[in-house]
Each structure stands twice: as C-alpha cells, then as structure tokens.
C-alpha cells in the first residue's frame, strides 16, 4: 500500500530524515518509535503534505501513485489521514460542519453522492458514542476550548467518520489519561481491517498494549535503526533508547 524509499527531508534547511525506507502492506499496523528529534513527526507531516517540509531525495508510492506529487487535500481525499499531534483551534467553524465538508470532499473524489445532513448526523452520533463524546460537542467550534484529551478523541472521531485507507497517527496517545487512552485505542482498533493500514507514531510503549502492532520500527537520526515485532517495543521500554542509539552511532 505504502512504499517509502530512501526518503530525505529537511525543515528550515535542517536535515531531519536521512534515507528512510519503509514498506506498509494492507491490513498492517506499524509503530514508529524513537527518541525526541529522531524524525517521527517529520515523517508523519511529510506523508500528509504539510508545507515547509522539503523533500530533497527519495520517493513515496501510495497505492501505485507518487504521493509526494499530490497536494495535501488530494492525499486526504485519496484516503490518507493524519491524526495531528497538536490539533489547531478554528474559532467559529462548527466541528460537525468541517467534518461533513471533509467527508463529502472524499466522497466526491470517489464519485459517490454527498451525504445529507440527516444521514451524516446519524453517522456522527454513532461514532461519538464509541468515542464517549457528549452531544454538546456537535455545536462547538473546531477544537475550540477543547482539553488536550478532547482534541485527541476528536481526531479519532474524524478518522472513524472518514474511514481512511491509511491512517498516520502522530503521538495520538500523548497527554491522555488511562481511560481516555483506552477509548482512543478501541477507536483505532475498530477501524482495523484487511483493507486498511495504520502507522502509529508514538513515544511510549503504553498505547501498544491496547493497539497491538504487527511491526515496530525504531527511528534514530532520520532513518530506521531497528525493526521487529511487538516484543521490540517491550525491549525498548526495558532498556531505553540509548540501547538503540548507541548501536546506531
């Protein structure tokens, strides 16, 4: 589904990704771990097409298409979803309005009719229940006055409604208490299917207890230093990143 080959990228002239290669197949969940500054979030943002992230070499193929040639909105419509580490507030723009516009943009792309307000509300309410969100959320502005935990749950809610083929979740677990973490994890798990794939960018092993990955990769200085299965995450937790960074140095 997704093939990243020898990816080099920099931000404000500073080199962050340094020859990263990764292959993600359908139905797979990959966890990307690594110390601060290793390039985890840069990878997520480069894949989603955030302006300011300059790709200097390498290629990324998604479903046979050159992903890097597409603007951000086209990537999203093609089924790539970025769960933001720091979701931004957009005052006055209704949460549900943005989500409906997003869903219809993706449906238009696929040649499907737009959903009407009634169908949409039924769908959102169903997913909100899963994410244990209150009805009042429907009338609020996008992330306006949300707590950190609410923002993250909102990201997962959007993902559940949009049903992306490839979800890239950037530190969705950070700042969540244990109950919220479980809710978020069950949301992610509910979308697991042989048709979809997920890349979890995370700092800690904690989330991976609830969303069990098929592969775990450790990113060090902009490239993958070590790959393995879920046991790698546990070993990292026990021995710390020094264990890998030392080996990679």
């Amino acid at each position, binding site marked *: 589904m997704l093939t990243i080959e020898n990816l080099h990228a920099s931000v404000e002239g500073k080199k962050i990704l340094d020859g990263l290669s990764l292959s993600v197949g359908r139905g797979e969940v990959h966890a990307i771990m690594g110390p601060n500054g290793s390039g985890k979030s840069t990878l997520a943002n480069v894949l989603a097409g*955030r302006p*300011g992230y300059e*790709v200097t070499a390498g290629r990324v193929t998604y479903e046979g298409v050159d992903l890097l*040639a597409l603007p951000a909105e086209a990537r999203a419509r093609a089924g790539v979803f970025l769960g933001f580490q720091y979701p931004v507030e*957009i005052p*006055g*723009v209704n949460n549900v309005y943005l989500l409906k516009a*997003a869903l219809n*943009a*993706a449906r238009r792309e696929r040649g499907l009719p737009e959903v009407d307000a009634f169908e949409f509300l039924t769908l959102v309410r169903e997913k909100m229940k899963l994410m244990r969100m209150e009805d009042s959320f429907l009338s609020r502005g996008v992330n306006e006055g949300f707590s950190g935990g609410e923002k993250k749950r909102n990201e997962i809610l959007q993902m559940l409604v949009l049903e992306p083929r490839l979800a890239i979740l950037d530190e969705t677990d950070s700042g969540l208490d244990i109950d919220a973490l479980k809710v978020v994890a069950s949301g992610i798990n509910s979308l697991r299917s042989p048709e979809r794939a997920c890349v979890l960018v995370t700092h800690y092993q904690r989330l991976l207890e609830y969303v069990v990955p098929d592969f775990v990769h450790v990113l060090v200085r902009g490239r993958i230093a070590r790959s393995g299965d879920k046991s790698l995450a546990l070993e990292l937790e026990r021995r710390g990143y020094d264990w890998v960074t030392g080996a990679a140095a």
Partner: protein
Amino acid sequence: MSEPVNETNRELQSLISRGYQHGFVTEIDSDTVAPGLDEDVVRLISRKKGEPAFLTEWRLKALRHWFTMREPHWAHLKIAPIDYQGISYYSAPKTKKDGPKSLADVDPKLLATYEKLGVPLHERARLAGVAVDAVFDSVSVATTFKERLQAAGVVFCPFSEAVRTHPELIEQYLGSVVPYTDNYFATLNSAVFSDGSFVYVPKGVRCPMELSTYFRINAMNTGQFERTLIIAAEGSHVSYLEGCSAPQRDENQLHAAVVELVALDDAYIKYSTVQNWYPGDAQGVGGIFNFVTKRGECRGRNSHISWTQVETGSAITWKYPSCVLRGAGSIGEFYSVATVNNYQQADTGTKMIHIGRDTRSTIVSKGISAGHGQNTYRGLVKILPSAHGARNFTQCDSLLMGAQCGAHTFPYVEVKNPSATVEHEASTSKISDEQLFYCRARGIGEEDAVNMIVSGFCKSVFKELPMEFAVEAQNLLAVSLEGAVG
C-alpha cells in the same frame, strides 16, 4: 521539492481573473443633468420631483451651508481629490411621461439588469417574501408588494413618492436625526438627494415581510445620493435590508447617502446592509467612494435599533451607522463585517450616544484585511451625564491575510456618568498556516478552507442577518477574498 502547480492553484487563478461579477453597464436612455452644482441645479432637481416649497427651501439651505464647509480629512484614508463640479447630480432612466405605474410598465432592460444582479422583482420576490424597492441611478424604478403592505398599513415607497403622498411625515422627520448641517457629505446629500426609500410602520404593526432596497449606479460621471427615512411608530417592528452594486468603470464614482431611522416607544428597527459597490481593479483604479451617514434615534422608551452591515465593495468606505439612545431603556446594536482586498480602504465603525437612563449598546466589529487593503475600525461610545446605569459592550476583531495589508482600531470612549459600565475587547489575528493545513489534511481545498475560516471569524455578525441574506453575504465575502491566500 518545489511546490507543484496543483488543481487548487489553477482554480484560484481562474477565480481571480473572474473578478467583479456585477460590473456590466446597462445601455439605456438616461435623462442626465449637466455636471456642476449651484442653486439652479438644486431647484431643477426639486422641480423634476414636483416637491413642495418647504423641501426646496430645505435643500437650498443645505447647499448654502455646504458652500461654507470643507471636505473632512480626519479618517485614516487616502482619497484622490474629488471634483464636485465635475459630477452630474441627477440621472434618471427615460421612461414614459408619467413614469411606471406598475412592474409591467418598467423598461424590460432595467428589469433584466436587476435579474442579472439577482434581485427578485417578480415571482421570485413573492417566493422569497421580500418586498423590494429598486433604485437605479437616481430614481426608484419599482416597488413590489405594495398591496400587501398597504393592507397592514405599512408605507414602503420611493422617497420621491412619499414627498407627494405623505408630506407631513417628511416635514416632521426629515433631518430630525441627521440635520442638514451634520457633515460635509450629509449636507451635500441634503442639497441634491434624488431618491431612496421611505418606510412608515404605524403603531403596533409588525411589518409582515422583510423590506429591501436595491441600489445601482449605472450612468457615468454621476453620483448617487439616496435619502432613506424609516419611522417605526409605537410598538411597531420592521426589518429592512439594502443591497448595492455598480458597473466597472475606471473613474471613481461618489456615493453619498443618508439614512435616518426613528424608533418611537417600544419600536424595533433592524437595518441590514450588504454592500457590494465596485471596489476598483486589482491595481486600485476606479471604484466607488462610499461616504455614507447612517444614524438611528431611539426616541422612545425601550425602543431598539440594530444595524448589521457586511461591507465587501467600494474603493473607499467611510461610514459609521450610529445610534442615539434617547429613550430610557433603549437599545442600540452594531454588527459589522468589513472586508478590504487589493487597494480597498475602509474607515468604518459606529457611534453609540447614551442619553437616556438604563440604555444599552452592543458593538461587534469584524475587520478582514487582505492584499494591500487598509481597514480601520473607528468607534465612539459616549455616555452623557443623564445616562444613569448605561452599559456598553464592544468587541473589535481584526483578521489579516498576507503581509501588505493593515488593520487599525480607534475606539473612543467618553463617560460622563459614574454609574455606567463600558467594556471593550479587541483582538488581531492571522489565518494561520496551521489552520489552513488542518483543513487541507481533511481533504478541503485551500480556497474553501479560507472561506470556512473567514466565515467562522464572522459568525457572530452573520447570524444577525436575515436568513436568506446571510447566505448571500457569505458568498459575497468568498468572492471578494478570492486569491487573498495562496
């Protein structure tokens, strides 16, 4: 990686080149007075309209006063010199001798013009439930729904007609809120005003529909000087909307209107404006000078006047819809969205003059600046010694798009009564790259994302507009900000 020329950018290009939508000129025979201004011209206008002597005299007093005045330059505006003797002060489409009796008599070309503008004069009006008075250059061409309004006792007609049918009301109220000595442009208007709308809602009547006037400047080298007067008698209720547009021309055209509102005891007037005069081209050539005096007086107890304006057009906007809160317990409101793009300039805001006890006012101003646009909020909250317990809340927000534009805020507060409460909140923000990217990462294109964010910014003003016009205002805003980001 160099930024690929994507679909959105291409769309953007075509949208930008589309430009102003209402810039067409209607080929029609006009009866236009030669440029220039003196007492003879004023007498001519008055005679053409068959006005009573008191009105001719009033105009002449205004003209004489105007000759003693100087053009004001205190606003934060750069104004090219205006040659007041080079303007024609009267232009009317040539009609059959006695003028149109009904819509069927109106020149089809005129009707087609309004059709193009999306003003529903015919069946569409009936469906929309809006009574429309259309002013073309200087003359009112059609007023719809007369019968239904008459049944309710509401008078809604061209000003020039009201002068003939209700001279006593005109004599009593004209100039009672904006005197002919008020300011340079209002005084000029008092001397040469041509037409406009007149509304009288009798005691206890709730006007059965929205009233609307559509103004259009067509002829070249003419100014448009409408005069609108709305009187809401005791306990009555009326909602009124004006819309405006003008053809695309290289020279600036002057629009100096005066609007007076009078609300008696327990009356309510809601006045909404969606202003889309031609703003000039991308280099700042041409466009309308929109120098307007709008003032409402809450004359009666517990009366209520609410101004809502969405200003997207004009090369220069200079207007301060204001409320004189004389009646005890009266309420004044001002909700404004002002947008400037390219080289447009706006200096707009309001004055809330608290005279009566327990009077309240609310000001919500949203300024959006893009391109090289300069946007100024200027507001005065004045609490007189008599205004015991008066309260004001002001919120002033500015949104900047790009690095060349400007936003300026001049709030003046004068409090002469210690029991008054005055609150002021202000903010300046930018559409952040973060917000744009967030929308794009959800599949929403850049242009749509900008519109969404701007609409969110303006939400507290848009919700004050009558439903059908809120949508129009939102679309207009989208058009006027095309190409502002990207």
